[in-house]
């Protein structure tokens, strides 16, 4: 008897608790893929947002890696249980855009909640990437980064290179890398993370050459890859030549090469600006430069493109929920929040005001590397070649490119063959995806 009374008491309390909370606040669910220090940032922002008002409660939930989070969101949508906000990585942008019935554009969410939404306050290079061709902003950029060059100053000195003057063009990188190797300053001259993102997508934007037709897919779905143009072939021929004697060392398809650089095996390294944290914490004597460009390209350097992820809002939610989402995005856009996010996580600020405020605070004088990606992205206004790339099946096309480049680096095919194959197989896959 006693037990039943106790259980009933608990049940009553629980019901009471849940009904009172249902009265007072609307819960906003946010599924994300942020790990490490970035997971702490998510927790802190959510807590602060919840403390700043009493109408909504933001509930962040970790859903695994980027692909795992996207799949969880899709599975939930199909089961009628979609979260309010889903964080989707850059390569998933095309998938989300194609799902028009499933999502609600951020611009509509904001105006629907009665908020003024001024796009010009946001960094154009980032916002452009997450907008429809007609300019409607579809998702809210949460974390953006861009590739930059890192180098090991101790190795530069040992090799007799100028440690205060990082290479600016790819030819300079090749020369410096050879010198590092031949002088014995390190066993390898140059390594890079993300060959597809850095050496194809950003290489094209930064040198102002097309990666594909249709403004790299931003203008329409009927896209053909252009990455077997001579400028790409020459670039990869140089890279493949350097790979033969280990002057260039391949580290893997994603971020693995960072560890080779951290271990002091390679002197020069290209990687996302978001990778700075580990390099700082390792205590290495490092330097930072802009992403190198091709000295033969006329428009270079143009601008680099963002990687990272943005926040998408699902459709068919209640007005209350949309108001809560809008309130959260407005909160996220606040200068002090953006400043915190930018300085703590290493991602780029989304608003111009946050960038200016950070500059004024003297943060970049202390951390010069943090401004480099912003300058790269905002130096010139983007052209048709440099707004970013978009495909419904970008992950698959990147897989194909990686496979062909790996065969090339293993000496099984030339740069020309590798890029020709990547174009042929990539185009076939794109056609197939459009057919679905």
């Amino acid at each position: 008897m006693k037990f039943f009374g106790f259980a009933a008491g608990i049940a009553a309390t629980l019901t009471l608790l849940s009904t009172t909370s249902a009265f007072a606040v609307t819960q906003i669910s946010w599924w994300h893929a942020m790990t490490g220090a970035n997971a702490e940032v998510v927790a802190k922002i959510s807590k602060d947002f919840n403390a700043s008002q009493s109408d909504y409660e933001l509930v962040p939930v970790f859903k695994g890696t980027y692909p795992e989070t996207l799949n969880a969101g899709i599975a939930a949508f199909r089961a009628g249980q979609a979260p309010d906000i889903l964080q989707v990585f850059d390569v998933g942008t095309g998938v989300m855009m194609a799902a028009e019935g499933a999502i609600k554009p951020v611009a509509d969410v904001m105006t629907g909640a009665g908020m003024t939404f001024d796009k010009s306050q946001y960094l154009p290079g980032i916002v452009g990437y997450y907008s429809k061709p007609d300019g409607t902003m579809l998702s809210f950029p949460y974390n953006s980064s861009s590739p930059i060059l890192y180098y090991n100053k101790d190795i530069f000195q040992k090799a007799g290179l100028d440690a205060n003057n990082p290479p600016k063009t790819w030819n300079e990188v090749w020369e410096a890398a050879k010198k590092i190797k031949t002088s014995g300053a390190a066993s390898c001259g140059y390594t890079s993370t993300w060959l597809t993102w850095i050496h194809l997508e950003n290489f094209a934007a930064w040198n102002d050459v097309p990666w594909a037709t249709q403004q790299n897919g931003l203008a329409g779905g009927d896209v053909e890859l252009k990455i077997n143009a001579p400028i790409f072939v020459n670039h990869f021929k140089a890279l493949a030549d350097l790979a033969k004697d280990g002057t260039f060392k391949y580290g893997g398809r994603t971020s693995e090469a960072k560890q080779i650089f951290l271990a002091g095996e390679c002197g020069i390294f290209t990687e996302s600006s978001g990778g700075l944290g580990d390099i700082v914490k390792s205590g290495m004597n490092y330097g930072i430069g802009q992403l190198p460009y091709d000295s033969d390209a006329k428009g270079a350097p143009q601008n680099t493109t963002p990687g990272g992820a943005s926040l998408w809002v699902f459709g068919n939610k209640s007005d209350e929920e949309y108001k809560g989402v809008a309130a959260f995005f407005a909160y996220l856009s606040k200068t002090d929040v953006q400043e915190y996010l930018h300085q703590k996580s290493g991602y780029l600020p989304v608003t111009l005001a946050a960038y200016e405020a950070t500059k004024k605070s003297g943060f970049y004088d202390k951390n010069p590397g943090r401004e480099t990606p912003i300058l790269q992205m905002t130096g010139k206004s983007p052209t048709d070649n440099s707004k970013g790339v978009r495909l419904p099946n970008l992950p698959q096309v990147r897989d194909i490119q990686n496979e062909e480049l790996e065969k090339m680096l293993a000496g099984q095919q030339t740069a020309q063959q590798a890029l020709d194959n990547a174009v042929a197989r990539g185009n076939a896959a794109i056609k197939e995806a459009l057919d679905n």
Partner: protein
Amino acid sequence: MGNAWIAREISLSARIVFPNKILPYLLVAPQLAITLVFFYWPAGQALYQSMLRQDPFGLKSRFVWFANFRKVLADPAYLNSIKVTVVFSLATAIVAMVVALLLAVMAEKAVRGKGLYRTLLIWPYAVAPAIAGMLWLFLFNPSIGSLAYLLRSLGIAWDPLLNGTHAMILLVSAAAWKQISYNFLFFVAGLQAVPKTLIEAAAMDGAGETKRFWTIVFPLLAPTTFFLLVVNTVYALFDTFGIVHAVTGGGPGKTTETLVYKVYNDGFVNLILGDSAAQSVILMAIVIALTAIQFRYVERKVHYG
């Protein structure tokens, strides 16, 4: 001598049963219910999806009959991954079982420290695949791992990132490594169940150690070996995508892309649901065929009559 006796015993036991009409149904009911709801129903859904072409969100879909199957089976990448899978599964099952059997036999022999050895050898089984993937990166990954660093500084031209054979060796070692403890556990149990009197009798007949192992111990291990053969093959075929994911990601090129990794990659990463569903239906058919073959032919040979 013992062999035939045990075999007869076993075949006899299968025939002595309890007469009861309702009880057996009640006994299988819980497992059957769970299997139906959480296996057959989703599998049926997968079968239906394998005949659809649809976008990831399921907003537009088209019924295409067997077009996805035709496409998958005509894809050279799929045929390649069948080849990769056969090599990988055989190598993994053989390596994992041979090493475990060797260690189990040695553990039986080592009188002193037997318990300690056994304890240490089964530890790795406790490591979660998700953690194993992380440990893997930290230790053996070609660019991140400390051991890879060691190899490189010794000047060994070990390059699984670009050399397909190296990548396969790495993958088989990783997959087998995870399975050794499991096999070891069962082989140790199997060895302990071998009656000591049989071995002593054979020793008195003058049979050497090697001969005793192959004529008495090994045949008595047959049920264990059969069980492990099933489990290891199934493990290598279907439960290793996490390892492929962490170790090689299917590369370099497509040299280590196994069937189950392709299902995962096409469905989970590339979001081509129809193809992925068709591939998982083919996988299911393969499991059913393998199970049937193993029960019909292999099990018959291990004395169940």
